[in-house]
């Protein structure tokens, strides 16, 4: 019996692509975001970072959940999956495990990532699969017109919290760090240069990389606008040792309501694919020669 063989990715690329013009990773249509939405800059930054990264468009998949930010895949010229609310990470996980050669980028909003998708976030961070997660934090549910989100500041008013929220907000950076992410960075949508750099580093990092982006919703959350972020953030100093977990923890703990912008933590340790790969080679696994009789012999 022959098993369907997965083609190696290189074989799937046609010949005439050798000397094509500069790749574009952005789609041709205009995004359907509100004018001045922070997410435009994230799109631009990802486009630039991917250009530097250099992989062809068709080896990249952008996976999202549901939300304004999750519309992202439709504005890209890559493969894309606009999945269900909260499920970007497990979809990305399955895809990456099944096709380790692809570059898999998960994207989503704060609600998608940390409300309904919180459990997947939690478990993705400890798995350390080699994927990049771009989280567009606007401290609100933009798509559903402005309810409070897990990242909303305590006491902030919204359609669903007319008297102010009553729950401790989640800091995505702190959450990722303490849940085991091997790469944690934070950017702001208005600083495209820095953001591009951070995304590029994330793409190059082997392991789960979170880039949290402060990305204002200009329509439904005026309290987190560009000015607020600018006055409540600071660039992480060059003296910060991003390879030191304790230093990273303290950086976040000491931020006290301000947003440290830059690379917070990075440490390479074996990825999930590598660990699973280890098991596979230990078990003698290979996709090409499958001996069903041998496997079935245990039932004899």
């Amino acid at each position: 019996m022959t098993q369907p063989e997965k083609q190696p990715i290189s074989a799937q690329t046609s010949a005439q692509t050798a000397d094509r013009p500069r790749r574009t990773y952005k789609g041709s249509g205009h995004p359907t975001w509100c004018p001045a939405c922070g997410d435009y800059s994230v799109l631009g930054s990802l486009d630039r970072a991917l250009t530097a990264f250099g992989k062809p468009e068709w080896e990249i998949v952008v996976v999202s959940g549901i939300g304004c930010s999750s519309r992202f895949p439709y504005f890209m010229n890559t493969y894309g999956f606009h999945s269900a609310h909260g499920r970007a990470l497990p979809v990305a996980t399955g895809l990456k495990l099944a096709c380790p050669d692809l570059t898999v980028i998960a994207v989503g909003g704060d609600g998608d990532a940390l409300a309904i998708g919180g459990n997947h976030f939690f478990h993705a961070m400890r798995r350390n699969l080699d994927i990049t997660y771009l989280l567009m934090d606007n401290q609100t549910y933009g798509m559903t017109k402005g309810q409070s989100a897990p990242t909303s500041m305590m006491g902030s008013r919204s359609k669903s919290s007319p008297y102010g929220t009553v729950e401790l907000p989640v800091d995505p950076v702190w959450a990722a760090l303490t849940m085991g992410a091997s790469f944690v960075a934070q950017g702001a949508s208005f600083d495209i240069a820095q953001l591009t750099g951070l995304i590029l580093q994330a793409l190059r990092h082997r392991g789960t990389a979170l880039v949290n982006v402060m990305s204002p919703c200009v329509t439904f959350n005026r309290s987190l606008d560009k000015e607020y972020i600018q006055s409540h953030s600071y660039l992480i100093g060059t003296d910060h040792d991003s390879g030191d977990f304790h230093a990273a923890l303290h950086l976040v703990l000491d931020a006290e309501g301000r947003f440290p912008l830059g690379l917070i933590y990075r440490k390479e340790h074996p990825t999930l694919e590598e660990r699973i790969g280890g098991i596979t080679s230990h078990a003698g696994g290979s996709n090409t020669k499958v001996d069903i009789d041998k496997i079935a012999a245990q039932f004899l």
Partner: protein
Amino acid sequence: MISSDNIGGAITIRFEGDSGDGIISMGKVAARTAARLGYHVYTYSTFLAVVRGGQVTFQLRIGSAPLLSQGDDPDILVALNRKAFTDAGPRVRPGGIILHPSIRDDWPKTGPDVRMIDVPLEELSIRETGSARCKNIVASGILLGLLGFSRREGEDVVREMFGGKEGDIADMNVIALGAGYEYGEQAGDVTDHLRFPVLESCRRLLLSGNEAVALGALVGGVRFFAGYPITPASEIMEWLAAEMPKIGGTMIQAEDEIAALAMCIGASFGGVKSMTATSGPGLSLMIELLALAGMAELPVVVIDVQRAGPSTGMPTKEAQGDLNLAIHGSHGEVPRVVIAPQSVADCFRQTIEAVNIAHRFHIPVIVLSSQSLSHRMQTINLSDLHNVPLFEEPFWKPGVVDEQYKRFMQTPDGMPSCRSIPGMEGGMYRAGGLEHDETGNPNFDPEVRRRMVERRRERMHAIQRAFHEMESGEFDCACRSELGLVSWGATASAVFEALQQLKGEGHTFCHLMPRILWPLPDTTFRHFFASGLKYLFVCELNATRQFAEILRARYTAELIKHGVEVISITKDDGLPFTPGELKTAILKELANRACEPKGM
């Protein structure tokens, strides 16, 4: 067609004792040996939900032809404690045998013509191996000896079964088996009347419904499995956890069922055949994402090993209560295929069929197994591993395209257009759960919407049109009787036996046992209704007659036209149907109807 039990011989052996007695291994050695010799085997065991001691039974039926059920009263009883004797002793059939380590005088009487043989299991085990712990394998040996089965096969089975264990445990058990075998051989003449030959000397696999599903997945090409433990489905994940790495596939235990299905959907988007397995509560949680797979037209297989619900219900008990959820469960309307295997062999074959259908039609497929089937063991032929048609999905051919690649192209016959897979140049598109146009871009235009709704409807028709290429069911509607019976899934075994018994009493039934429950085999059903049918019995293990209602809704016009009365035989008490129970229920309904004209 499943053959009848009447060809060749069959005997039923029951092992019963304490949970510490090693009853299951004892029975399995005998079962596997018989299967290797070419016998057909059917086993059934009961044990408690939570591991905490108690009585264990293992019933083993051996036949020269395929077996429909685990049998009824035993021909041979291996009773290891008093309760075993009290339970089953009186039920041993005339001419039967009871093996026991130490009988007491005050134990209850057995039926006439039943021989009792004292078997010094512990003594033999200690004498030969220096330890009492092999006494269960001594018992297996005695049985093999009594039945004249090949000692060498038995020894091989024992060696392989205990091969992985630490120390010289395998060797000890081989010795124990041998000791028992000699003991049994000497008394062998008492079993002459219970012996019968194999019809075809070949090696058969003996495996459970869950194992057959897992093996089917491998053979069917599944290379990605994500799961979350749940009774009674966990063994599928567990077996694949051990085997997937050996063939370069991936098995991952997810954080919950939602993540498990999401991961499968992701892997499927990547072009890898993927599957998950769960039970009712997990299926409920997966319903939202099932619709995503349907909208994005991604193949994925979901195994639902049904257990008695609702809610946590009775996790270790049998039921067929998830049919409605499987067929109708989703907000809005999304196509899916629902398949229900009827035997262990079916678990194997229908899992492969599920993978094939999913990839041929780009659709989620739900396979409805159930608790009793998942833990039942039956033989399948080794050759079955190779005689299965595997569908090779024709992918889109990568290349530079003029316009945007159209993932959701309209085709005249309702078939999906070829998929591009990430990594293929020029094939970039966006999949998702929003309503979309041919490229996959979101589009809520009423005209586009109508086309897409139609597309999803047509997909179901395309599947129905392909039914003749699939084992879509066991259909016997040529018998032109007024009496018809429909059933599905694990109930098949009891139903077939009941039908045989009814035939014996002069009631011939046509029957339809669809394997593919959704979409329905319309043509077959319509022929059936037009064949002179008057009463249609629908047998299923739930309280609200789920399948019967679906038939009534779909075939109202035909039922009206041909004046067919649908009569439901259902129960939902956690136990499978027994053939006798079915027969009684059916005869009662017939009697009611026969009286009707007179009574009025």
